[in-house]
């Protein structure tokens, strides 16, 4: 039996928060969120194939306040996972491991994903106002 009084790795409580930790955790969290979001995509397609009545149920859900909040969350998750995923692919190629680059690319993933989310929703809302 392990002696739980001694500090156990990975000593999370003694780490100072760094942006690289945030991007790593967010990549997993958004990945899980997007997996659930995929079921929504499947639902949309099944509803669209199932007839106008079924599709109305779907659009009523995504157009409801809860649906809009979920869609905003999913759209940011998608853009974040996309940006940070590209960052990981670059790192898999062996690039960007200098600490300065690592921190900078972490911030880039966060900021670019927020900008893309804002751009898409600005487009959606202005089009919604025009329609």
């Amino acid at each position, binding site marked *: 039996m392990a002696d739980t009084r001694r500090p156990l790795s990975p000593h999370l409580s003694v780490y100072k928060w760094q942006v690289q930790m945030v991007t790593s955790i967010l990549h997993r969290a958004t990945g899980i969120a997007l997996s659930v979001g*995929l079921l929504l*995509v*499947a639902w949309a*397609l099944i509803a*669209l194939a199932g007839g106008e009545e079924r*599709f109305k149920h779907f659009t009523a859900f995504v157009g409801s306040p809860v649906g809009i909040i979920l869609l905003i969350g999913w759209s940011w998750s998608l853009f974040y996972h996309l940006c940070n*995923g590209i960052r990981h692919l670059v790192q898999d190629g062996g690039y960007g491991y200098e600490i300065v680059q690592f921190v900078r690319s972490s911030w880039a993933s966060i900021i670019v994903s927020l900008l893309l989310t804002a751009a*898409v929703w600005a487009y959606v809302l202005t089009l919604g106002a025009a329609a």
Partner: protein
Amino acid sequence: MSAYPKEYRNPLKKARGLGSAQHGVSHWWVQRVTAIALVGLGIWLVTLVLRMLHADYATARALVARPWNAVLLIAFVVTAFWHAVLGLQVVIEDYVHTRWKEATLLMAIKFIAVLATLAGVLAVLRIALGA
């Protein structure tokens, strides 16, 4: 160890490159291949969804029924669920330490993903083929 080994080939020959799980780098590699595919398919899906904003039922259906849209949608659904299963598998393996719960969850995500993929693909085919 018998004095007369039946096999002259060094066992290391069979193990090399396969790792403890005997699957080698296939999980890692397929996750990257699907990730690269999803960079393109994900951005394309966002543009498709934006084009479907405020579209009525018939317009939305006609858009999905276009051959290239149908093909890319099927590619997206299959690739995204595949990528999601690989990602969720790692999360479950990392955080679920009770063996039966881990095995149950690993199977559950695969069953759900396969069913949702098949249902999504069938839906696109029904729309594209005008059923």
